[in-house]
């Protein structure tokens, strides 16, 4: 049992995922797209193993490591934010959320550095080769999700700051949290698949 179990407000249906069901429909759709993209990457690689292995070496694994750690940490902060609001502590909730957003910012800055290297220094684009097509498509699509997630978390933080959430009613926090964890989840597969597996 997790720490937060005890703080579930009375009346919450244990068969429903945390947050608004609408966001889960959206999450499922997004996960679906990423799943197809991952499978497409793997099966295309089958016919271009040499090419994929060669250009994978051009990627900045250290940057990807920092980004993975940033996203995991950020996700952890969001978990703490949800726990805080369940303990009826909006002030802590806001702080954890802001910490999570700043980790997201770390991700964005590092990723932009990576893109700068590939796009400007190396002069790579979507049409350079199949590997870069997948690398750019996957990471850029994910990158936009990170930005979207940061916007959502910021909005949730503002609402929390205004005192809209409490231990009794905090669906909004859970909704934003679920989306952010999805962004993290996708990266956890993307990182080994694109940067490490060869």
């Amino acid at each position: 049992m997790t720490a937060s179990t005890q703080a579930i407000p009375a009346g919450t249906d244990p068969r429903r995922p945390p947050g608004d069901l609408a966001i889960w429909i959206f999450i499922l759709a997004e996960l679906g797209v990423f799943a197809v993209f991952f499978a497409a990457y793997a099966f295309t690689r089958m016919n271009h193993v040499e090419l994929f292995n060669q250009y994978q070496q051009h990627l900045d694994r250290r940057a990807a490591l920092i980004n993975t750690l940033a996203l995991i940490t950020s996700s952890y902060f969001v978990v703490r934010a949800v726990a805080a609001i369940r303990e009826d502590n909006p002030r802590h909730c806001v702080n954890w959320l802001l910490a999570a957003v700043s980790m997201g910012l770390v991700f964005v800055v590092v990723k932009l550095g990576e893109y700068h290297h590939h796009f400007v220094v190396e002069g790579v684009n979507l049409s350079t080769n199949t590997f870069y097509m997948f690398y750019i498509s996957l990471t850029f699509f994910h990158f936009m999700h990170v930005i979207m997630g940061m916007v959502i978390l910021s909005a949730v933080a503002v609402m929390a700051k205004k005192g809209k959430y409490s231990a009794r009613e905090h669906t909004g926090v859970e909704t934003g949290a679920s989306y952010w964890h999805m962004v993290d989840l996708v990266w956890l597969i993307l990182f080994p698949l694109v940067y490490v597996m060869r």
Partner: protein
Amino acid sequence: MAQAFTKTMARNIFYGGSAFFFLLFLALTFDTSGQLPSRDNRAALDGPMGETIAKGKELWEKNDCIGCHTLLGEGAYFAPELGNVYKRFGNSIDGIKGFIASRPKDGIPGRRSMPQFNFTDEELTALAEFLKYVSEINTAGWPPSDNG
């Protein structure tokens, strides 16, 4: 109590999701615009035949060729694909001109026939050059066969 599925959230997803994917679409469009010069044979448009090709496209549109034919697979499916007709005619401008010029005025009994448009030689050249230009666009290997 927390509501399971709210209209507000559905609305936010609609606006947020649409804006998100439209921006992504614009980003891809931006990249495409950068890539097109290496694929869309615009060199031909800027070259010595540029004006002739432009004239050809005008004639192509003015006579609603797309109303029967397809061009790169788009149009009506009543008459042959013309995106690769230049190649199908053995890379021959004269072949295309001759075909268009020789259509019977009253059609062919019982069969589909292209109308007789009474083009001048200059117009025929323009149309043929236009079709040559289109045939040199990089279409990722489409169509699968020369028959279109």
